[in-house]
């Protein structure tokens, strides 16, 4: 199976529109992440891929052929749920074996495959246990094994890491990514955590309220967000957004004037990432309000004429204290200007400080 195509897919539950006008193409072997806040329709989309839900309108195509009506069991898809959904009364071995019952595989061959996959995800020591006796991380690996044992053409992951603790999450992120690279299976990951999406996926589909906001590589979304929403969603700590008015080459925020490109006009929002603002000898005068040491970096919240801004500074030692006065600078190339009404990007590199 080479390609998955969403062709103007729409899914409604009665009056509620879960997914609308979804058009997307995914190539064979890609690792795509559906990223967005809860309720944005990403899980619904995933389940439509699995065949659990059928689209209300539009066509879902595998290899150019419409598969809207094809049953889940005919699609050869593997899925890992957020809750893992392991069969509580079966042992780990039986759980992993389950999908092979419905394929024409000889008993001995099936057992061999189960052992192989179990080794692949490192649950081979747990084969006799019941799900209730496993930790969250172990359950997740078993769920992964169950999804992989049937050699799926499509692997679906629905927020697989959200129930794991922070260290385990990092380990599993790397493992899943390595697994996908090795097996080459098309993978779709649904998550609300933008770090997961940017670290694991080749491409990210950012969704909001049932629609696609932007599709692109992690870099695309980070450096060239096409809307306010995407800019705000990607990047941690989140981008500084400052509303202002632009006219005649000047961008005024809270009474403070910046130079900007002449083509920018009207009510706009200036976006500047905390890592792009730096302390200098001259610039905008600011008072330090809060300090958050984050180990490798330090996050400052400062008050300046533009408003309250977060500044990210590398290094664990911080030289400023609360109440200190400092000067801020940022570069032209690092700013983003959005039209305030449409929330769409107006200028990729918008404003600069006027000295």
């Amino acid at each position, binding site marked *: 199976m080479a390609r998955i195509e969403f062709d103007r897919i729409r899914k409604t539950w009665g009056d509620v529109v879960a997914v609308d006008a979804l058009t997307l193409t995914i190539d064979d072997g890609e690792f795509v992440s559906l990223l967005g806040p809860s309720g944005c329709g990403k899980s619904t989309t995933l389940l439509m891929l*699995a065949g659990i839900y059928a689209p209300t309108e539009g066509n879902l195509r595998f290899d150019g052929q419409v598969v809207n009506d094809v049953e889940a*069991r005919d699609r050869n898809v593997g*899925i890992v*749920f957020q809750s893992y*959904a*392991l069969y509580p009364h079966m042992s780990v071995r039986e759980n992993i074996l389950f999908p092979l019952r*419905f394929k024409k595989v000889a008993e001995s061959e099936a057992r061999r495959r189960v052992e192989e996959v179990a080794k692949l995800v490192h649950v081979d020591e747990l084969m006799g246990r019941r799900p209730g006796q496993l930790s969250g991380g172990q359950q997740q690996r078993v769920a992964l094994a169950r999804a992989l044992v049937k050699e799926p053409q499509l692997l679906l992951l629905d927020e697989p890491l959200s129930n794991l603790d922070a260290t385990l999450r990092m380990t599993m992120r790397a493992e899943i990514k390595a697994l996908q690279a090795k097996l080459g299976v098309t993978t779709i990951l649904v998550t609300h955590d933008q770090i997961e999406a940017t670290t694991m996926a080749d491409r990210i589909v950012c969704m909001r309220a049932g629609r696609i906001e932007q599709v692109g590589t992690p870099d695309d979304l980070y450096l060239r967000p096409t809307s306010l929403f995407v800019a705000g969603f990607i990047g941690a700590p989140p981008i500084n957004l400052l509303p202002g008015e632009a006219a005649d080459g000047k961008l005024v925020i809270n009474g403070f004037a910046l130079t900007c490109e002449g083509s920018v006009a009207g009510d706009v929002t200036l976006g500047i990432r905390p890592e792009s603002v730096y302390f200098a000898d001259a610039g905008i005068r600011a008072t330090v309000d809060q300090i958050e040491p984050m180990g490798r970096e330090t996050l400052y919240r400062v008050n300046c004429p533009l408003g309250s801004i977060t500044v990210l500074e590398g290094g664990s030692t911080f030289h400023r204290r609360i109440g200190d006065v400092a000067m801020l600078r940022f570069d032209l190339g690092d700013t983003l200007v959005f039209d305030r009404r449409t929330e769409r990007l107006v200028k990729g590199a918008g404003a600069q400080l006027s000295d």
Partner: protein
Amino acid sequence: MIWIKENDVAAVTENDLDVRRRLRSATWRQRTNLFIFLGPAIVLIFLLYVVPVIVDIFISFTDMGRSLAINEFTTKQYEKVFAGDKRLPQVIGLTFVYVFGTLAVFNVTFGLVLAILTTAIPKTSGIFFRGVWLLPRMSPSVLYIFLWIWVIDPSEFGLLNQILTNLFGVVKPVDLMTNAPVMLIIFSNGFIGASMGMIIFTSAIRSIPEHLFHAARVDGAGGLAIVRHVTLPALRWPISFITIYQTLSLTVSFEYILLLTKGGPFFDTTVYALYIYGRAFENGQYAYGAALALFLIVIGVALALLGWKFFDMKKLLQVPRIEVQ
């Protein structure tokens, strides 16, 4: 239990009399509260459960007959139970057949089938069909049996015969009462019994997490496989509970049988509980009835205790948090 705050004690040590008065009134209130709140319940339960059991045991050792007079104390009722009553073995045998027949066919199996099917179709339709199957249980017993009597009426006016003659061209009207009375009581009680299983199993099926079904479908399971691997394993506890509970219920109840067949023809459909009723109230052998009833009481209580093993006791024994009287 009396609980007096430290401040109270400090403020009150001035006047010992006052303390003692308070203590006494608290104890007094504690006792009266017990009487007022629990008293009526305890009294009624004692009068309507304990006393009858005692009376039953007492009477079973007498020779009370139609005249309601007690002439002597004797164990001859029990002798009759164990050796003298020729009808009894047949009655006991029939009771087994009836209880396990109804249980196996209707209460458990059909209840399961109904629960699984009505949850597999769209919700409103499911509710409709479950509503239909609740109709027998919701109808007053006299009415429900009236309908059955009408249906099986051996004349041409019986509804069953109407259907057979008009739709299927059967010439001679059937008489189920004479020819298949045991099947009759099993079916009539079964329609009612199926609904309880249906409700409890439906509730249990609804509480299975949705994702488990999704996972099974993606894993390749079809309808029957899903029932086997996802639905039924989740129903183990409810099935056990229903089995015990309905066994108890079927063993001791006889209302529908009494209304439908009166135990006949002859003793063909007389189950144990109905036998007791017949002997006591129709033949006037009250003492013998009491003796027979005692066995039923013991069996009933044993089954009840077994059934409650399947219940969650902790939730019920939640400890109170206010200790003031």
